[in-house]
């Protein structure tokens, strides 16, 4: 344990009283002359990192209506309905199989807290995070998005980012 450092309690006094005021003014003036850092949002956009949790995309084909996501969601904002259909046997004489078909898959993004638990628990890789963020709505009810909309977002799901140290790189332990 290193020795706790106590400062001498010395205040940051300027040599000339009042000089501190002008040091600050010099700083603001310098900033005044520099180029602003603002990103002009609707014109230019910031690109969020690949892992950003923007919106949840759904792969309808992969979903098996297992309801795990709906059950694990901490605020129960996923609404799933499905029904079973009899499928003709794959080859004649085989057993007829049942398959679950998704009727409704809604996520209420007004309630969702973007924790990512649903994406994590889905055992069939049907849910993905997309960094897409421009889906604001004028009323809370409009934030309930159905499976059509969720599927559209599938196209925006990026490749996972390259990892630190995955490729040999000089200097990294």
């Amino acid at each position, binding site marked *: 344990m290193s020795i706790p450092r106590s400062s001498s309690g010395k205040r940051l006094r300027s040599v000339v009283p009042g000089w501190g005021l002008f040091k*600050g003014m010099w700083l603001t003036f310098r900033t005044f002359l520099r180029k602003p850092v603002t990103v002009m949002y609707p014109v230019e956009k910031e690109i969020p990192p690949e892992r950003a949790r923007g919106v949840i995309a759904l792969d309808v084909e992969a979903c098996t209506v297992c309801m795990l996501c709906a059950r694990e969601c901490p605020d129960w904002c996923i609404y799933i309905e499905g029904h079973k259909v009899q499928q003709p046997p794959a080859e004649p004489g085989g057993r007829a199989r049942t398959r679950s078909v998704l009727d409704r898959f809604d996520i209420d993004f007004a309630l969702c*807290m973007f924790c990512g638990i649903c994406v994590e628990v889905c055992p069939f890789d049907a849910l993905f995070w997309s960094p897409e963020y421009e889906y604001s709505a004028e009323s809370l009810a409009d934030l309930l998005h159905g499976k059509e909309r969720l599927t559209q977002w599938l196209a925006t799901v990026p490749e996972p980012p390259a990892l630190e140290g995955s490729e040999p790189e000089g200097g990294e332990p």
Partner: protein
Amino acid sequence: MTTPADRHLLAMHRSEAAVSVELQTEDMVLNIGPQHPSTHGVLRLVATVAGERVRSVQPVMGYMHRGYEKLAEVRTYAQITALVNRIDWVSGFANEIPFIVAAERLMGVEAPERAQCIRLILTEMFRISNHLIFLCSFPAELGAPTPLMYALRERERVLDLIEGVTGGRFHPNFNRIGGVKPAAGGGSTQRTRAQDLPKGFIEGTRRAMTAVRHVCDDLENLVLGNEIVQQRTIGIGVLPADKAVEYAMSGPNLRASGVPFDLRKVEDYLPYDRFDFDVVTMPNGDNYDRCRVRLEEIRQSARIIEQAVDSLPGGPLQAKVPRVIKVPKGECYVRAENPKGEMGYHIVSGGGRRPYRVKIRSASFCNLQVLPWLLEGALIPDVIAILGSLDFVLGDVDR
């Protein structure tokens, strides 16, 4: 024996007393909050004021009570992790740490080294982000809005790094029992790959730390070196060390009073002992010192992060844990040095998927206990300044 000079003084006091009796006015009750620009949310102070002088203050809390302790009883451990980083939303990740560590201790697992180091780096990043927020809100309370923009500008770099790793800027939900994992899973490629730090993180961290140090220097000039700020803060809201301990202050507020107590040195919830850093203390315990301690702590955190990034161990990120997490019967209390002070979770587990009871000790709530004592006799402008210097977040107070 009174000398003539004394008598003169006495006469003066008498005449003053006579005047004040004549002008005796009713005290006014001033409600500062719950909707007020400087109460950081919905804190309410019922102040009895005589002119500008505050006679007594009664803080009223609970406007933002969300019942976390009750919520935690009906949620699984993974869900609680997502919940608890919303307690003090300015430093979300740091809230997860003590909870996860407590659960891990109950289960008898330990996160691998690399995971622990990443936890430590992110905790310190949130400390930087939290203290930068303080450095923008505190001058704003004194009436200077510009440091806000400078601090937030650099905080953005830190948040970008955090987002790159965890997928969330404020609410990372990055800790799992036995390790760390970004919530951006999904897809078998991501499941296997998207676990570790993304490429460019280490480089970006080094650059961000340089920028953060730079803005610290700027803010030192703009805020701490400014004579008006010094007029407004030095000797205002003095909290002596013994009082600070009595009122169970913790974190930077305690260290500003000269008590060198830092859980990072005392506890072993994260491998802080590997890194070299100082516990910053200041002797006076006034507003100025509370501000200065935080500024110095940013520098110390940057130092820790740089060391940690340089010596990041390899290895897995996740220890072996069962798929369905059940925590064995027992109880455990883990406390950690959060940016705002001591944060602790007491978990009582009945042996199921959900805890039986979680008691949360949050820093801001305990730090606010001192308010009635500290604000008594202050002027209204100083009330706001002192309030700001204590650095609380209402989510952390009311939970």
